[in-house]
């Protein structure tokens, strides 16, 4: 069980807490067969998000599709007019709707939510992205670089229909592979991870992607003694820690509240 005292301590942080705001689609660009980049101009201000934090997006589903969809922040521009950038892969109703949006359409946002990535251990970080996991890691890479901390970002995708190679204002991965070899190298992004860790001497790993990839990454890092932070995926309803819908079982059977205590956890909290 997580400490409930801790949980409650973190409540009532309205000053820096999430905001409910409206945004306008400023640009919507299809960057792969199933993926688009959505630039949203905020009509009101939000607390500055940090890498790994996310928003719950109201895709306009009304009564029919009630839940907001979680999307990681890929880019944030506070000035002159605050703007957020999201990367969206079409997987179902909500993401299809978002990718079909025209400039000028309105979107409701709740955020920033959750706890983002913590400070890296040591001087050289490896960022490992699977699929849309590239979004928060591009933001992290941007943050690290702006603090002059070295990092490499490698990204794996299922196939070319999913590949996002970055954008000038956001940065790009250092290497890309696809499982079917349709673009970049062929294989999974954590293939040969053990060798890579020792060869380049990474001191910290950050990973975001499918569960299996995170588990594999955590295992290799643990064996190599490299600290690893993972960002988890979970279905969400409230995003505020209050419905307990996103809870996953972590190491030792502990309840991890992905939306509030995560989505980023130390890999040892997640995997036994």
């Amino acid at each position, binding site marked *: 069980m997580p400490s*409930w*005292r801790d949980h409650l301590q973190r409540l009532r942080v309205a000053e820096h807490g*999430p905001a*409910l705001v409206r945004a306008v689609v400023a640009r919507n660009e299809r960057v792969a067969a199933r993926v688009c980049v959505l630039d949203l101009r905020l009509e009101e201000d939000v607390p500055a998000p940090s890498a790994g934090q996310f928003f719950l997006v109201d895709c306009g589903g009304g009564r029919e599709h009630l839940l907001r969809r979680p999307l990681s922040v890929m880019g944030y521009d506070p000035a002159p007019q605050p703007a957020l950038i999201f990367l969206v892969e079409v997987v179902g109703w909500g993401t299809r709707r978002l990718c079909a949006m025209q400039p000028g359409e309105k979107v409701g946002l709740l955020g920033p939510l959750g706890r983002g990535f913590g400070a890296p251990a040591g001087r050289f970080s490896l960022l490992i992205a699977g699929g849309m996991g590239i979004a928060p890691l591009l933001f992290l890479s941007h943050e690290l670089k702006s603090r002059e901390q070295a990092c490499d970002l490698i990204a794996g995708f299922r196939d070319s229909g999913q590949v996002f190679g970055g954008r000038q204002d956001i940065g790009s991965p250092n290497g890309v592979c696809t499982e079917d070899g349709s673009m970049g190298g062929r294989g999974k992004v954590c293939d040969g991870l053990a060798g890579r860790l020792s060869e380049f001497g990474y001191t910290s790993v950050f990973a975001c992607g499918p569960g299996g990839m995170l588990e594999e990454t955590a295992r290799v890092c643990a064996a190599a003694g490299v600290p690893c932070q993972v960002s988890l995926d*979970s279905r969400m*309803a409230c995003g505020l820690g*209050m419905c307990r*819908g996103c809870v996953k079982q972590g190491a030792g059977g502990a309840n991890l509240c992905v939306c509030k205590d995560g989505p980023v956890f130390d890999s040892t909290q997640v995997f036994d």
Partner: protein
Amino acid sequence: MNESSLMTNLAGIELANPVLLASGTAGYGLELDGLLDMSRLGGLILKSVTIEPWAGNAEPRIWETTGGMLNSIGLENIGVEALIEDVLPRISEIGVPLMASIAGDTVRAFARLASRLESTGALAAVEVNVSCPNVERGGIQFGVDPNATAAVTTSVRENCTMPVFVKLSAAASDLPGIADAASRAGASGLSLINTVPGMAIDPVSRSPRLGNVTGGLSGPAIKPIALKAVYDCFRATGLPIIGGGGIYDAGDVIEFLLAGATAVSIGTATFQDPARATKIVEELPDAVTAAGATTTAELVGRLRTPRNASKGKR
């Protein structure tokens, strides 16, 4: 039309308006702070608590369905002592009536929870959750059995002086009969409805969408079911009712009042918009006017039924 038109007397509790946040979809209230002005709510029903902290069900716990969602949280909660020590002192600052919701797997547990909570003096009422579809014992099994419902109600009634609302499920063959059993056992009012048992399956992986296999359905999809439950139980018992299930806007609130609810609870709609409940409060005066009334109170139970509503005419 002014704000006083929304004043509500719910089994003796004075509410500024009939709009409450439902149990379990607003946590302990504190989490919503800063996202809506909670002082504008009619009141707040806290997440159901058990005697000991409870970790809830296996993941995944939620799944969106057409017009609704399934959940199988399984009453994960911090336990009554943490509620009393950590939550009540802070949430009481909001200044709106608070109701605790209690859940247990024995009649005794319900009684203990009620008396322990009453002792805090911080609560306006207690809601007795005998209708959770997501726990092995003490949930819906109680709520579909008139004797068990009566036994729980009696013991809560005898162990506290606060108004007692018994929360029921629509998944009972004879819901009015169960409502009547609760009424005879001393319930001050009813809360209708809890989520409706349901499930969903991934047709590709062949797995259930919920770790717990089955869950409870909520949201606009169940609104017709909830309205009928309120209508039937109001006619059967005349008790004050907290009506809810799929409420999304002020028009929905009017529907529940007409069916017989004195107050309403906003659940799943809070996920669509954390500030939805206060938006509903703002829209309510216009909806009351549209219904040809000047106060919400005068709409309660005032459905206009047609003269010729005969079943199976020839």
